[in-house]
């Protein structure tokens, strides 16, 4: 779901008759170009980095779990706790889209409309949270069969 979430537009903005659609990445670039680089960094971190880190981290944990406990169990458990904590912040863009959609409704002057990309992104976030919850960190302490 991350592929359509990043390829499809998430928000469309209409301002003084000009219509523009943005994906997550193009929206962040536009923020950077407008000088709002802290917001651009937050959006890229929450919408792109965190989901990718979660997927990569869970994949690594699954790989290590198959190999069995090798002395890294404590570190891997901390990695799991970190992934569990950061996952919620990926919802930032979803809440952002909902808030902007509800507030910016000034007709032809300025209007923000959500697009399909934000639905795909929300689905991706929900799936990553469910994947994290489905992973039992206790298996990281299981000794590999000899």
């Amino acid at each position, binding site marked *: 779901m991350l592929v359509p979430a990043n390829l499809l537009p998430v928000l469309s903005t209409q301002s003084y008759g000009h219509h523009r659609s943005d994906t997550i990445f193009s929206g962040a670039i536009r923020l950077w170009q407008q000088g709002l680089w802290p917001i651009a960094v937050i959006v890229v971190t929450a919408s792109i980095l965190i989901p990718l880190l979660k997927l990569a981290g869970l994949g690594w944990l699954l790989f290590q779990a198959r190999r069995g406990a090798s002395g890294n169990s404590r570190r891997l458990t901390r990695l799991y706790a970190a992934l*569990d904590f950061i996952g919620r912040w990926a919802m930032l863009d979803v*809440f952002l889209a*909902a*808030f*902007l959609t509800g507030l910016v409704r000034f007709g032809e002057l300025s209007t923000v409309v959500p697009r399909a990309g*934000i*639905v795909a992104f929300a689905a991706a976030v929900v799936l990553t949270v469910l994947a994290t919850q489905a992973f039992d960190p206790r298996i990281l302490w299981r000794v590999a069969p000899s």
Partner: protein
Amino acid sequence: MRCDAVLARGARAGTDSALVFSVTGLALALPAVMLPFVSAGKLGAERISFLFTGVRTLWDSGMTSLAVLVFLCGVLLPLTLLATLAVLHAPSRLGWQISGFPLLHWAGHVLEHWAIPEVQVLAVLVALLRLGSVVNVTIGPGFWCYCAMAFSLLVAQRSSNFNSTAPAAAAGSPP
């Protein structure tokens, strides 16, 4: 402790703080919902947004699944978690006996992954910074009540510990 490893820690501030902050959060929920959240103005036109405005707009736009997700994670589940925490910690303080304690404990453990009002607070702040140059925005009292509610939930969660049996022992129920 077992084999010099900490398996679980009890609540630092005790069950009283968890009860106090969960009840406080519940009390703040009503003004957060009823009072204006944010207002925006552009060339004389003004729009006042409440906590549910974004959810309702998404629903009206046909994005019902997104509206439900935002409503659950931003409003309903935080309130449910606050109520769960209050019910979990009230018996030890008020001398009540409740049944279904393990179920409530499990529910709280599940809810804490999905009740994320702090993320919505950050999202609104980011949106306000983004909109500042486009429209005139004014933060309403509803937003401050929502921030206080989110803070109360965070403190109540930190004062509880869903990974230990401390609340169960305090309530007199078997772990």
